């Protein structure tokens, strides 16, 4: 990855949420939702962010767009750190970065007709000068996202889950952004609708050269859509690399457990009963385990893992892993 096309570069991002306590509501501790993660996304590529609930993947997505104020770290967008920008300058970058949410029912304002929801931002940013032009663009966007433009006057509650997600995507495209964070964008949809939206996302990516950060807990969807993948556990990235490296020759025991736990209808996989089932529950992010955070559930955990948090190692170009016993896994 040469310096130039390092489109999105996140460095040592931290997001700690204070826990209030005591008589004067002073801060008695922190929920380390995102604890020092760094990664880069190339222009026009899709990076998958995978992990179980509470691992901080959604917080990462929202903090990158500065929807929540980050505790520490930088987010370079084509070399410009957007955390340092003033509100006015940040507003300019808002047109470049957008987000699509999971729940189609709470991501659309029930009181506004569709053309308002999609077109509103264009007026705000002056991309269109009057309502006529806005409507014109709204029709184009709706058509591009597989919606019937003549329904632009309808209200959100008159659309199905899948159509609503298409409206969210249209809204995100309104300011013709370059980078979109998809936060569990297809998880709430039925299977048949899910595949339609996934294909739509891929078509848009290819036709508009978009870059995605695709956040999901569903491994097969991530495998299908992303170019590179990062696996998160309790606020940290435990393994990161290309799709090939992560899905076929993973190194971190958690990645292995995740892949084997995912049910699949491929008969070969179903028969072999050697499945790794992690014991115990996900620890609470407010007091993560010491040393390597996975040691409480890791079958390979040893004394070193308990005390010392492993450093990220670049095993092969682009393939990073944070684990003390990398060699052990391969026998």
């Amino acid at each position, binding site marked *: 990855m040469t310096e130039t096309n390092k489109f999105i570069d996140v460095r040592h991002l931290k997001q700690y949420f204070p826990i209030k306590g005591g008589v004067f509501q002073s801060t008695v501790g922190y929920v380390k939702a995102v604890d020092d993660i760094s990664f880069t996304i190339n222009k026009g590529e899709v990076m998958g962010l995978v992990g*179980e*609930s509470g691992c901080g993947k959604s917080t990462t997505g929202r903090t990158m767009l500065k929807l929540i104020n980050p505790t520490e770290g930088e987010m370079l967008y084509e070399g410009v750190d957007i955390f340092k920008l003033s509100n006015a300058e940040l507003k300019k970058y808002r047109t470049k970065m957008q987000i699509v949410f999971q729940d189609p029912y709470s991501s659309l304002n029930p009181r506004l007709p569709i053309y308002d929801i999609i077109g509103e931002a264009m007026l705000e940013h002056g991309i269109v000068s009057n309502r006529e032009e806005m409507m014109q663009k709204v029709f184009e966007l709706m058509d591009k996202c597989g919606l019937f433009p003549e329904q632009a006057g309808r209200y959100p509650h008159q659309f*199905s*889950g*899948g*159509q609503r997600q298409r409206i969210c995507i249209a809204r995100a495209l309104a300011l013709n952004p370059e980078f979109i964070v998809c936060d569990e964008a297809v998880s709430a949809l*039925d*299977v*048949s*609708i*899910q*595949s*339609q939206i*996934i*294909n739509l996302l*891929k078509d848009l990516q290819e036709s508009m050269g978009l870059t995605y950060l695709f956040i999901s*807990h569903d*491994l*097969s*969807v991530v*495998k*299908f859509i992303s170019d590179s993948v990062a696996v998160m556990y309790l606020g940290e990235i435990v393994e990161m690399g290309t799709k090939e490296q992560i*899905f076929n020759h993973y190194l971190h025991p958690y990645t292995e*457990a*995740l*892949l084997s*736990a*995912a*049910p*699949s*209808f*491929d*008969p070969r*996989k*179903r028969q072999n009963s050697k*499945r790794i*089932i*992690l*014991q115990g*529950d*996900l620890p609470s992010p407010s007091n993560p385990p010491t040393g390597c955070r996975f040691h409480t559930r890791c079958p390979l955990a040893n004394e070193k893992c308990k005390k010392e948090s492993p450093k990220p190692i670049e095993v092969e170009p682009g393939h990073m892993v944070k684990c003390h016993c990398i060699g052990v896994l391969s026998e």
Partner: protein
Amino acid sequence: MSEMMEKKPLLEVKNLKTYFHSAGGLVKAVDDVSFDVYEGETLGIVGESGCGKSITCMSLARLVECPPGKYEGGEILFDGQDMLKISDAELRKIRGNKISYIFQEPMTSLNPVFKIGKQIEEVLRVHRNMSKEEAKKEAIHALDLVRIPNPERIVNEYPFALSGGMRQRVMIAMALACSPKLLVADEPTTALDVTIQAQVLDLMNDLKKEIDTSILFITHDLSVIAEMADRVMVMYAGKVVELADVNTIFEKPLHPYTIGLISSRPDMSTTSDRLNVIPGNVPDLSDLPTGCAFNPRCPYASDKCREGISELVEVEPNHFVRCYYPGGEKHDGN
């Protein structure tokens, strides 16, 4: 698989019809559904939202809220009784005792203001009229059965203190406390993370053997069905469209909807650039198209499909399909 057929079915559902009279008009949520469940078997019901799978399993113990729901017709024979006809008192003797349920949302399925122990003891005291102490001991045993660490402490905990996975285990413990004959699991692991889901599915399989209960497993996730079910029933718009054992369904599906469903689901083994897609939207039950409800989205639909719908035909031994052109065989295609 075949020797199952001779055994007498544990549960026989015949032409079950459960309709909803809502403001938007008549909704035929479950429209003439028939199937059997055999002892020791796990029957999977799969389908997208609104296909009636949940309403079907809730109708088994008359748990659908009426009004607005109403059992229009059909029979549910269980243990020699028709669940739709028996009195409320008898029905209550069966619920939680012979048929028990576990639901999708572990976060809200337990009463937040009662202790875990109390909620389990309640089932035991109602169905096994145990004393307080006996019930408490048995509850701890039940928690141990579902592999919850130090059950003595958990018994006195409140639900909010437990994680999603733990709560689902408590639900299972509660459901299996009276060793029911049939466990109805309505999307039990949908709200759980992958690793926790694996634990719970593994647990359910072990308990099935230990307590010799049969499971009715409802979910929209094809891969979970592939893991768990012995036989699979696919539902669409309130009707059963295909029923066969699990390998047949995944290797040789016949109904166009099942075919579309399996091919559109990305899996570890998919390599194609675009997913196969079933066009159109999930059907709205209050205004279904005439004939076969799937015809607007079906690549093989013909005029015949638009007028009527075929019966559930046993195209091969133990493989039932509700389609005029099973497997999408060639036809004059008008």
